[in-house]
């Protein structure tokens, strides 16, 4: 079960991680906010199962790319806010560069082929 996840979900998961980091580059945000940002920015094309955000957020936190603390939301509710750490910022840099290279490469292939 675990193995299967790894093979088929690897790309998706890493991409989701990257999108989360990107969303948080604007500042601290709660999970719902991140989902909204990703949805809106991609004009609702990238609409992941919102639930899938949470394992990813906790994973990134545990890896030290994010920190989290409880705060109060815009409508006065307790919410958990995530923020990039220095390591997270670095990872985002690396990832987006890599992504850029890859996207360019893919589109070149698609155009020429």
């Amino acid at each position, binding site marked *: *079960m*675990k193995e299967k996840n790894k093979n088929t979900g690897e790309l998706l998961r*890493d991409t989701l*991680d990257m999108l989360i980091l990107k969303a948080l580059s604007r500042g601290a945000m*709660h*999970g*719902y906010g991140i*989902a909204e940002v990703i949805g809106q920015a991609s004009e609702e094309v990238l*609409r992941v*199962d*919102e*639930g*899938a955000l*949470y*394992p990813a957020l*906790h*994973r*990134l*936190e*545990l*890896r*030290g*790319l994010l920190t989290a603390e*409880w705060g109060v*939301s815009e*409508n006065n*509710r*307790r*919410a*958990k806010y995530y923020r990039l750490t220095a390591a997270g910022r670095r*990872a985002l840099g*690396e*990832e987006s560069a890599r992504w850029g290279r890859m996207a360019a490469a893919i589109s070149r292939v698609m155009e020429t082929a």
Partner: protein
Amino acid sequence: MFERSTNVWLRLKALFNRRRLDRDLDEEIRFHLAMREQKQREMGLSTEAARYATQQRFGNVTLVKERTREMHTFLTVESLWQDVRWAARGLRKSPGFLATVVLSLALGIGANSTMFSVINALMYRPLPYFDPGSLMVIWEFEQGHPESEEGPPIAELVDWNTQNHVFEDIALTSDTEGEPMAGLGEPEMIHQQFVTPNFFSVLRVKPVLGRIFSKGEMQDRSQAVVISHSFWEERFSKDPKAIGKAFQIAGVESTVVGIMPSGFAPFYGQKIDLWVPINPESARYSERKDRGWLMPIGRLKPGVTRGQAQVEMNLIERRLEQEYPRSNTGVRAKVLPLQEAVFGWARALYPLLGAVAFVLLIACLNVANLLQSRTEARRKEQAIRGSLGAPRRRLIQQVLIESGLLALLGGTLGVGFALLGIQLFRNLAENFPNTGAISIDGRVLLFTLSVSLLTAMLFGLGPAVQASRPDLNATLREGGHRTSAGARGRMRNVLAVSEVAFAMVLLIGAGLMINTVLHLTQVNPGFDPTNVMVARISLPEGGKYLERVPGGDMEKVTPLVTAFYRRLLEKLSVVPEIESVGMMSGMAREISFSVLGHPAPPPENRPSAVYQEASASLLETLRIPLKKGRFLRDSDRENMPWAAVVNETFARRYFPNENPIGQRVLLRHESYHVDEERPREIVGVIGDVRTFGLRENVPPMVYSSYLQQSAIYPGGCVLSHLSQDVVARLGLGSSSQNNFASIIKKAAQKIDLDQPVTTIMAMSRHLADSIDDFRLIMRLLEIFAGMALLLAIVGIYGVMSYFVSERIHEIGIRMALGAERWNVLALVTKLGLKLTVIGVATGAVLAVWLARLITRFLYGVSPADPTTLVVVGLVLATIALLACYIPAHRATKVDPVLALRHE
């Protein structure tokens, strides 16, 4: 890329803050859902539609929570721990189930650990010497007869040590031998080993005090001895001044030169008091006729393999064959690891390990059956968890953890049982070697752990597989009612049949052994052992009884020997408690012979027999039947023609068509190829006697009077003259079995103050001891079979009870429709009978097939003994049917109304 660094600290924290983490996560997700719902409503959806859309977008909440929680765990350690707690809680709630399972497993595992500890102490635990792996025994054997393992002639050790390049050093050691000691309190037998001076350095032991033997040191008129730590404690109270103290061993002045560290005891863990040096370079051994009584031990040079050593020894043996054709023609050598050489025989115990494995297997089947019922009862719970999104992996893990937990509990308790089992084994196996070393060590614990986990796999696999395919819809819809009862019913039947079959195998094993022991105890010893006591007296080899003949390995006995024994017999014969007293050689030995007037036998194939000296009174004392002629007489003296008496086997084998009486034979001491100085005339034939032990076949025997012996003996042959077993028949009704010991000791010391008497015991006890191994195996198999029977009964009872409870509905209908009690009884009993009969039959086939493995322990009974098969089969079937009867009886008491209402 994000995989690399993980914050271990956070994970640890999460592990301990489990509850808070859960609360936080709940709140986080609740917040998300609330926000999304609000947003949907703002977009104009109804409350209901908004909730629905939110659910749609979010996905399975339970699953998300579970996945997220998993992020906080070390791989799955934490979920494991959670399942362990969950399982523990579940088990606590059903103490009956828990107790039954753990107890059956503990019995099975404990029995296995016990047997393993026994074998471990002999075969697996490294011997307690430095680098024991490089210690090898080098046996010689006759070409074509690799089983004829013998030590080399003593002088050959010098050739081995100078010619080989593979051993650092090779030493010789004798078995532990009893010798009379005097000059240190009460005369007593001490246990000594003859060793070459390099023996201690080969084993790499250093004395705690004093020195070890120096090269060339040897026994002569006086000798140096190295004493064991326990002897030092017993005799010298650990006084350092023991070094230099002198006393007599077998009449030889012996001076203590060194003391070994405590616990040093080659090689069987028996009692050892001291070591006496042998010098292989001595001229005494130059004749090379003293093959066979010493064991060579070599230490391999670093990096040399056993194979290389073997090649080298082959080469050396060829060379020796050229150089010493007389002693070495056709002689080869084989190199064996020390442990193998000393304890390899313990492999014979493997079938017992197999037997306990069967016990455990039955226990496992029982547990599998119980677990099956439990799993079925919890199918609904599983199905709910499954539909709520618990991954199947978790469901399987859950079941496996429960079985693992049960197995570990069983294993732990099993270690406790093993402790008891070892104690029990020691009590059962008095004469078993090295029982003191049997203990629970790391290896046994590891074995127990592995066995426990293996059993968990065995009995947990079935339920786990079921948990992996929860038929959610069916289970939930049927409200937990049992589905596909047919398939699982068959499964149960297979379990019950297997249990009966395995129990049958063990019962037959036990039955065969009981038969064997019965046969052995009914073996006619050829004499009447009632009220007969036996005591051994060994006159010392040094001192006044023996003179060494210069040159060669010959010894001359002084007339004091016969004088001693004649006076002893005289003294004992007037003791009122003793009805009759006789004597025979304590050490019988091998002779070959030629018959005067018959063609000379081929030298390599001479007729042989076993030889014992005897007193004239032996026949009467032991009540041995005289078949022909006369027995030895006290008038058979030195100056009369030498007489001999043979047993029936001898007469039958060597004089099948002639009258043995009047034949004259010239006896030859083996293996020294030295003839007696005068021929003996056969004057009588007596019945076969089994004084050596009940299981032995009676060899052809020759008896001669202790008064008619040559004065000069080659090598160790003199022992059959020096060492005698005194047998005495006590008067009926005399309570003097214990008195006998003091009577004979007093008598011996009246003649020679320093003379000890040893191994004083009842003849019947001696005979019983001779079949000790058989008794031990019988007892063990009895115990195992008893356990198997008990477990199998519990098993079949469980299966039948389940069958009844499952059919309670059906039984109710039948009874409502007018079925009689006996119809119901028949319904249940029919199944019980079927299972039992199939089980017994399968078991019988399996048992006959497996009994080949214990053939060597069987005597007078064939592995497929039909009586044993039938009797055991009937007994087992009866007991199994009784176990069926209780559930069957209960079935007849079913109230149809209640049964039909039962959902």
